[in-house]
């Protein structure tokens, strides 16, 4: 009993409040997304997503309780074990999994199913945190970096095998954690540069302009800087590499990406090219959000989402309901909530005494940030359509539990941060 009190006293109630507000708002919006005026159904109706989400929320409460009861040392101690178990489940999915909505990502008994890929997020976060938190860990050692990339690469590949590209991409965000823990920003910058060049290649029809631009920049860089042989050679190699990326874009677009993925990229570049085909999702999503105006159409008054113009309106495109029914004000509230949560998590992470807890905290922040940025970005046409949920808002048990576990393990660690120090 004393321990219970201790936890409740030390819990970061700011985060818990934000969490509760988000889950509640999410639940209302899921109801709004599936609401049918003519059907006279209540928000508790179990045949609706909102009714089922309430069960998921109730289950989350039990999960939270379990997380808080378990000894905080368990998470670090069992990190690899949990990671291994989840990897095993991911391996099982292609064998005994069931197919839902085109993706074979579910494990289940009867009508009840979970997506191991969702739980791979917190498992990987734990494993990465434990690895970096090992006494004497040095980020600048190539072997360590390689092991870290293998650690996030294995679940990525296994999830890619389930054809769930969106969830697989989430794991790239661990690069941010590595960056925080001392890895050179070179990799992030190269990745960003490659992405920019990639998009530019798609946007600029005649690639001669791009080559010309690279040439100009190269000459300028050589003339402006020190004229050492080594520097000129490095710059030239860099420019050639960029040219190689440009050349490979065409290959990637036509040969590597699957047709539906190509279309998602094309829809981002120019959604009006085929508003009924590959641009449909983005076009309809923007129409729904754009029609919300300043204060929105009002709760349950949206037309675009509940009449199915927006696809996946209670899961990946839940933000459309917010944008349509609550307008810019509603969007503002949700975005501010997310920014506040993310900043709070970073604040929590930074105040951890142990490296394990801090790395874990940054992993949580990075994963939430990726979901937040990519999900809302895609609904308003800033990002290609990548099917990942908006934390705490999107309908779905696995996603809600996964995000809840991620957050509350951090809160548990945070509550015992002074004990952590004692252990050392």
């Amino acid at each position, binding site marked *: 009993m004393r321990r219970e009190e201790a936890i409740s006293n030390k819990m970061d109630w700011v985060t818990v409040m934000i969490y509760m507000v988000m889950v509640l708002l999410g639940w209302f919006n899921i109801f709004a997304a599936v609401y049918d005026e003519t059907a006279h159904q209540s928000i508790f109706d179990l045949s609706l997503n909102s009714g089922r989400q309430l069960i998921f929320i109730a289950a989350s409460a039990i999960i939270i309780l379990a997380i808080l009861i378990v000894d905080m040392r368990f998470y670090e101690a069992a990190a690899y074990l949990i990671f291994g178990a989840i990897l095993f489940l991911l391996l099982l999915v292609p064998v005994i999994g069931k197919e839902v909505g085109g993706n074979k990502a579910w494990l289940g008994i009867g009508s009840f199913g979970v997506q191991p890929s969702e739980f791979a997020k917190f498992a990987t976060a734990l494993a990465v945190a434990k690895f970096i938190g090992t006494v004497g860990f040095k980020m600048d050692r190539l072997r360590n970096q390689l092991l870290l990339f293998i650690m996030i690469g294995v679940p990525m590949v296994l999830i890619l095998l389930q054809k769930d590209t969106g969830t697989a991409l989430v794991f790239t965000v661990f690069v941010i954690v590595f960056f925080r823990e001392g890895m050179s920003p070179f990799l992030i910058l190269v990745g960003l540069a490659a992405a920019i060049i990639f998009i530019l290649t798609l946007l600029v029809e005649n690639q001669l302009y791009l080559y010309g631009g690279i040439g100009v920049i190269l000459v300028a860089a050589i003339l402006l800087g020190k004229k050492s042989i080594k520097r000129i050679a490095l710059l030239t190699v860099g420019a050639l590499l960029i040219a190689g990326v440009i050349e490979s874009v065409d290959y990637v677009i036509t040969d590597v990406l699957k047709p539906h993925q190509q279309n998602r990229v094309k829809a981002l570049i120019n959604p009006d090219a085929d508003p009924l085909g590959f641009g449909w999702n983005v076009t309809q999503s923007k129409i729904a959000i754009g029609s919300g105006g300043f204060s929105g159409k009002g709760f349950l008054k949206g037309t675009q989402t509940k009449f199915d113009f927006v696809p996946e309106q209670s899961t990946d495109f839940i933000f459309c309901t917010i944008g*349509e029914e609550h307008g810019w004000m509603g969007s503002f509230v949700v975005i501010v909530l997310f920014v506040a949560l993310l900043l709070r998590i970073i604040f929590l992470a930074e105040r951890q005494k142990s490296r394990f807890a801090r790395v874990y905290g940054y992993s949580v922040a990075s994963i939430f940030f990726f979901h937040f940025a990519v999900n809302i970005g895609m609904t308003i046409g800033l990002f290609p359509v990548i099917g990942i949920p908006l934390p705490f808002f999107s309908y779905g048990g696995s996603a809600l539990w996964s995000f809840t576990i991620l957050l509350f393990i951090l809160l548990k660690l945070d509550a015992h941060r002074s004990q952590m120090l004692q252990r050392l």
Partner: protein
Amino acid sequence: MNEGRKEILQIVIVLTGIVFLVKLFFIQLLDDRYAQLADSNSIMKNIEYPFRGLIYDRNGSLLVYNSPEYDLLIVKREVTSLDSVNFCEVFDMTQDELNVKFKELRARKEYSPYKPTVFIKQLSNYDFAKIQERLDEFKGFYIQPRTSRAYATNTLANAVGYVSEISKPQLDRDSSKLYRQGDYTGQSGIEAYYEILLRGQRGVQYKLRNVKGIEKGSFKDGAFDTLSIPGHNLITSIDLPLQEYGEYLMHGKVGSVVAIEPSSGEVLAMVSGPSYDPSMLTGRKFSSNFMLVNSDTTKPLFNRPLMAMYPPGSIFKIVQSLIGLQEGVLTYDTRFPCDRSLVNCHNHPNPTNLHGAIQYSCNPYFHQSFRRIINQNKSPNTFTDSRIGLDNWRGYVKRFGLGEPLGVDLPSEKGGQMPSSNLYNRIYGEGRWKFSTIYSLSIGQGEMLVTPLQMANLAAIMANKGYFYTPHLVKAVEGADIDVRFKVRHETGIDSAYFTFVQDAMSDAIYGTAQRAIIPGITLCGKTGTAQNPHGYDHSVFMAFAPKENPKIAIAVYVENAGWGGRSAASIASLMIERYLTGEVKRKPLEAYVLKGDFLDPVVRATPAAQSVPVNMDME
């Protein structure tokens, strides 16, 4: 080592939030395109077409009503897998026709794959019954009910007019902006003239629909919905039995019959021959039938009572008599010798007074009379004197409703022509014409044209002894008033005593020139005429009213290429009057004579048409 990296991440997070809010600001607040797109996505506008007003005859018989028809609409986006073989079978078309339909659909300017667009127009009730139960086999196709015109009589086509889809130029001209492509509008006759009263008001219902087009209740609880308001019903002055009898008599003939109730100006019958069956120009077969009717060489769409113009011929002598009397240049006893040096005449007592001149239709008499009307020595210059005289004369003529459109409630009415000094100045030059230039006018020839309607109106003026009401076909509008101008009495300004005198002459004239027109027991006043036709046989003309004591009907009949007015035109007018006043026709031989339609003399017929026309000569 890792100083500042926390801050970089915090800045990235805050920047992401700001970028999102700015982007949202653009699409939610600055760009209203999305709101419009959302409405066009989810709000379905169901148009409820109003019932067009019904049209009745003067006795309450229905003339024109509405019959249901159905448009087949398509929402192209919803047509995913069309069983075209099945479709062609149900809708009775070939695969090629179906392909053409789709091609036409895409070619249309307003075409959108989201919006319901008309695919097949005007399916009949019968077609609909056949299609209805199989419609669910064809996803994306819907039925929209509307109505088309239906006709209770196969007569009266030109007077009632027809209704068809509004044309592109009409749509561009329409300043009310009430019409949309595909809407029906009256194109001729009463349908066109009374379009505003007949059309009613369209109702609109805004419905919400989901992405599959399934209705999801009213938009804003129907706050913007309106019910359709039916058009006003019209009660025409047409006497359907008389109209039908008129068309029966005119069958196979070219010409017009116009009958007017003198006391009100109400048109009792308006026959234009040849005509068409009004039910041809309605429904799905409209286009092909319209081509047929429009290209017919007998011009069935030409509404002769209003649009055909003829020289009035001898009928005009009664107008000359009245003007002469009013001007004081003629008296009842004025006598002129029948001098045939300038104009021809036929054998009759000579010399004759005015009564006799009208009765025998003496050409030289009216030549002399007209000279007195024109040359009253108002000026020593004979040219100026003629100009003054003609303008004075024309002032009278205008008050008889001649020389300009009467203003009947039908579109495209022609005004005929009554020459003014301006006209002759244009032709001959100012001061270069005088009475001897224009003397043909004296007997209703020359630069003088009238419509059959104007002649019927003239008969009404004669019956009323000097005034008329503008002829009109609609005597009452349900829920609205008829135009007040139909209630205004137009005076000719000529003493009614003179009319009494001319009436007597007209009733006697029947015994001289139009014995076929005599109806036992009814005093009929009439005047024959022969409108000269340079292109063929002369046109037979007759105007009359009856009974003389209390006129109930005034009538003018034109039969083209039928020779003397005393034969076909007088017979038809007389039969019409008998039919209207007694309700039946007892003179069956006369009726048979008219129906046979063989009015020309064997001698005249033997002569080539062009040569049979004597210049400036009236045969009566």
